[in-house]
Structure formats: structure tokens, C-alpha cells
């Protein structure tokens, strides 16, 4: 499903080169629920942005569904994002001026579905998250947990095969977080591959596989058997990778000058 080989991502300024990802390798099989953890600044979000085709990378190969993503045009990557990938963000990122139905409808508009099909999918997605009755409400009229469920509905409306969640419960209280997590688990059970970045070790443990990123590299894999018959990912590294160098280097030429 997702295959990253020797991916590097370097952010350059005049003085500093920051290696957000270095020789990053990861395989995610179809139907997996992978939790990504790691300290702040370790490269989790960069990994998620690259996985979601929101950012390019400096080196390496990235295959999504067998398609090589390297040097893909903006139109193509936008189409892949629209058709195959669903996003859930920590801050929900709903468009405040649009009501729930219109928010969920946005990706379907870009997909070119007709009005009837859009309506059907919006209805279905909002029913799935239990908010069909409030489709005319504005996001500001909902609680945080409800807004996140709308964001999930928006991600699901396009029936993606791949869901990327960046700390989806980060802004929610524990009860809301549990509800959202249960919803994600249900979605995963229905066959959607999920990669979730989280700081919450408890939530991470509920995923099938836990990946730890430290200083831009995959540090450890841990398999959790859910007993639900999912395929699960293969162990990619026998040992935790020990990071001994700083992932920020100074540009010596610039410094000297």
C-alpha cells in the first residue's frame, strides 16, 4: 500500500540545514492501522505530509498503491489526494463559513461528482459519524468532538483507501478522544488503511502497529495483535536505531562568510 525507501527531507535556510527525515524506510500494508509516535520535532508531521503528498521530499522513493510519487505533477498529486487519501487534523480544519454538509461536500466537488452523488455521499458520511441531523449547522455550533467527527466524515466521503490522521484527538478531552478513536477503529475494520500520528501512548497501543520516529528516522516497530485478523506490517528493523548525531547541521560556507 505505502512504501517509503531511503526518504530524506532537508529544509534549507541560508545558515541551517535541517534534516527532518533521513533514510526513512517504511512499509504499510493495506488495511493496517499504524500509530506513529515520537518526540516533538522528530519528523512525524513531515512524514505525514510526505505520505499525504502535501510536501515533496529531497531523496528516496515513495510508492503509494504501486504508483511512484517522485516528481509527480501538482494536478496528479491533487487527484491522488482527492481520490485515495483522507486527512484528519488535530485542529479539525473545517471551513468555518460552510455548514457541515458543505464542508463534507468540498472534496467531492473537486472530484467532479454530480449533485445527486454528492448529496448521497454527504448523507452517508454524516450518518456514519452520527451527525446527519445537524448537516445544516455551522462548525462553530458544534463541540470539538463533533467537529472532529465532521472532519472524519469529510475524509470518508470520498471513500479513500488511506486515512492520515495528525493527532486527531489532540484537542479533545479523554471521553471525546475515546469516541473518535472508536470511530477510527471502525473505519479501519471496514478496510481503510490508517496512519495516525499521536503523542498519546494509550491511543498508540490501540493501533495494530506502533512506529516511533526519532530525529527523522524510524526508531522502532512494535506489533500489537488486535485479534481482528488484519494483515499487520512486517518488522523492518530488528534493533532500535540509535541516533548519535544532531539532525541539524550548519552550512559551513555561509557561517564562514
Amino acid at each position, binding site marked *: 500500500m505505502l512504501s517509503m525507501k531511503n526518504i530524506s527531507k532537508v529544509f534549507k535556510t541560508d545558515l541551517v540545514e535541517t534534516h527532518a527525515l533521513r533514510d526513512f524506510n517504511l512499509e504499510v500494508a493495506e488495511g493496517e492501522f499504524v500509530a506513529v509516535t515520537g518526540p516533538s520535532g522528530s519528523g512525524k508531521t513531515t512524514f505525514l505530509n510526505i505520505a499525504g503528498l502535501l510536501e515533496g521530499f529531497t531523496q528516496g522513493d515513495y510508492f503509494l498503491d504501486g504508483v511512484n510519487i517522485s516528481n509527480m505533477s501538482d494536478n496528479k498529486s*491533487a487527484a491522488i489526494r482527492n481520490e485515495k487519501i483522507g486527512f484528519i487534523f488535530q485542529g479539525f480544519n473545517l471551513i468555518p463559513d460552510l455548514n457541515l454538509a458543505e464542508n463534507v461536500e468540498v472534496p467531492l466537488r473537486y472530484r467532479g461528482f454530480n449533485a445527486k452523488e454528492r448529496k448521497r455521499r454527504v448523507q452517508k458520511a454524516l450518518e456514519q459519524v452520527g451527525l446527519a441531523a445537524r448537516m445544516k449547522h455551522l462548525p462553530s455550533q458544534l463541540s470539538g468532538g463533533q467537529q472532529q467527527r465532521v472532519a472524519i466524515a469529510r475524509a470518508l466521503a470520498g471513500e479513500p483507501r488511506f486515512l492520515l490522521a495528525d493527532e486527531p484527538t489532540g484537542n479533545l478531552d479523554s471521553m471525546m478522544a475515546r469516541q473518535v478513536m472508536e470511530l477510527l477503529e471502525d473505519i479501519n475494520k471496514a478496510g481503510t488503511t490508517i496512519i495516525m500520528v499521536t503523542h498519546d501512548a494509550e491511543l498508540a497501543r490501540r493501533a495494530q502497529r506502533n512506529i516511533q520516529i526519532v530525529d527523522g528516522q524510524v526508531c522502532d516497530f512494535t506489533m500489537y495483535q488486535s485479534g481482528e485478523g488484519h494483515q499487520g506490517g512486517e518488522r523492518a528493523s530488528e534493533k532500535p536505531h540509535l541516533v548519535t548525531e544532531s539532525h541539524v547541521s550548519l552550512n559551513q560556507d555561509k557561517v564562514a562568510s
Partner: protein
Amino acid sequence: MFFYYLDLAWRSIKKTPLMSLLMVLAISIGIGITITTLNVYQLMSENPAGERSDKLVAVQLWSQGKDAWKEFNNQLTYQDAYNLRKSDVPVRQTAMFITGLALQTEDPDFVPLLESVRVTDSDFFDMFSVPFIYGKAWDKGVDTEALYQVVINEVLNKQLFSGEDSIGKTLYLDSKPYQIVGVTKTWSPSPLYFDVTTGAFKDSAQIFVPFSLAPIEEFQSWGNNQSWKRESINNYSQRLNSEMHWIQFWAEVQDDKQRDEYAQWLKRYVEQQQLIGRFDSPEAAAQLSNVAQWLELNEVVPEDNKILVGLSALFLVVCLVNMLGLLLAKFLKRAPEIGVRRAIGASRAQIFSQHMVEVGLIGFGGGVLGLVWAWVSLSLLSSRFDLEQSLTHLDTSMWLIAPVIAIFAALVAGTYPALRICSTNPSVHLKSQ
């Protein structure tokens, strides 16, 4: 998607009404000024003869002596006009000038009016495509055997006869009875190209009388009278035989061949006049100009007007620069939302289109408001400076031109802000929302 973008644009405009209003105002002021100057320029530079422009030719003769002015005069002497009327080369021809006569009717209560009257030949009406609602021009025979006949226009006919068919009725000009033979529709080409001697942007006369009556009734010229020769003119007969230039002369030719034939005829006429001691300048010649050439020759559209249009276009550019700044601020403020849209599948092209539709909508609003400004400023020009109506009415073409210019200008101003917003990295804004 266009209607979706239109819906988003309308929501965005409603969301920031003050900023949107400022942008609409900025572009509308620029458009208003541009359309005002463009409107005046267009009305001044219009060729009112249309397809007949090449067939109608103004006749000029270098008849003045060698010490006189060094250019063709716009008008002829009476004796030259009289002689030229005898040519059988052109299809039609007419001599003419403007006079002023006191108008009375048979109604004893009618207060006499001093009216401007065009003294002309019967061909005038066909040559310049004057439409009639009642009757027609006087017969051709009247051009040689004078009769007291008159053609009036629709406005005067309404004033005098309540708009009824007045053919055969009598009106009095300088106390002489004239029989009405024709009533024209309201007709006033702009510019009034067949007589630019007293200004090309005035209304046409309401009354037309036969040129053949001039020597009988001794009509005085209300137009320009130019003379290069010191002559004693004590009576009308002396005026008719003088070298004073006061008659306009136009001819109609079928095609270029006939125009050349007529030019040859005029050349021979000049030579004949030289033989009898007139036209003693070495530059003596005849010149024919079609309507377009005539308008250019007489600089009906002054160069200043072109400069004014250029300056107003520059002002529009200044307005657009202001609009660009406002758009940039507005669009970049929306970057987080655009980040979300990009993340969930919008391509750069789609985001660009969305913003260009919004810019186009603002431009359209500016265009419509600009038309209102143009209408207001033309009305003010008309009332404050007493300009002719023909120059200050908003031409119908401007109803289309203004929104098109406004939308185009707005799209030009909006391109950079739209490019900026669609090229922002979505991932930067997703985390920060």
C-alpha cells in the same frame, strides 16, 4: 465548477463587505473615469456616415490668391458653389449653409421664434440618408426654379402641429409663407460631419429650405465667412459675386472611378477659372475628402482627447494597484482555508480559478458601479459646462465595454494575488489552524 466558485466568491464578498466595497469602489472610480473619457472620445471619433463614408466627398477648392492662406478652405465662394452644382459627374451634390429666420405660423397666438435654418439642395436628404416620417424633399426642379417649400423635423412638427401630418400646411419664415413638403424623423448625426465650420458637435437644424431661394431671399450666413480679398460688399448681389468663402459643398460618387472622373472635372474647372483670371495662386487645385478623411482633416477629435483617454487609463492602473494590494491581503488571510482545500484534493489550477472568479465578480461589480459614475459625470459635464447632448449621452456600447474592461482589469490585478495563494504550501497552514 464555475457556479461553485461563483457561490464561494459571493460568500467571500459578503464575509468581508468593507474590503470588498473598497475594491469595488477602487475599480469603479477608475472605470468611471475611463468610460467617461472613452465615451466622449468614441462619440467624437465616430464615423456617422457608416458604409456611405467613401461615397460622400467634401469638395474644397484652393481658390484664394497667392498671398492668402496656404491651405484648402473648408468652404467655397457662392460663385464656385453655383458653378459646381452644374456638374453632371457626381450622382448627387449639394451646396449648403446655415442661416437664421423668424418662424411664425398661421396661429395668431404663436410667439415667433428665431430658428436656425439649413439652406440646401434637394439631394441633401438622400445623400445624408435623412429619414422622413411625412412627405419627402422638394423636387429636384426646385433647386433651379425656386419655390417656397420647406422641410421641418419631427420635433418642430410636434411643436407646431401636434405631430400630425403637416404636409401642405404653411409656416412663415421671415414673414414669407412656405409650404411644408416633408417632415424628417429626429435626425442629428454626431459629429455633424457635413458642416464642421461652426463646431462638429451641435444639433442639426430643424428647418431646411431650398438653396435656390438664397439669392431671392438674401439669406444671411450664420456660419463662418472668410475672405482673403479686400472687396466692397454693400449688397447681397456683391456678396454672391465676391471671393468670400461661406458655402459648404458635398458630392456623392458611386465608386472610386467616378471619384477620379469628378476630380478630373474639378481640375478642369480650376484651369478654366485661372483662364478668366481667378485662382491665381500656383497651388490652385481641387481636393476631395471622404467622410473619414474629412473628420481627420478637420481634427474633429482633438489630440488632447487621446491624451485624456491615456491619462484616464493610467488612473485606472493606479486604482488596480490599490486593488491588487487589497486582494493580496484578503487572499493571504485565507491561506489556512486554502491549505485545507489543497489537502483534500484541490489542485493549484482549481484554487487559482476559484480566486479569479472572485476577482472577476468584484470587477463586474466595479464595472456596473463605474457605469453609474460615468453616467453621473457625463450628466454633470452636460449641466455644468453646457455641452451638446450628442457628446454627453452614455453610448450604448459602453454598457458592454465597461463591464468587459472592468473584469479584464480586475483579472489582471488579481492574477498575482491568486498565484500567490495557490502556490502556498498547504502543510504550513494545516498545523497552525
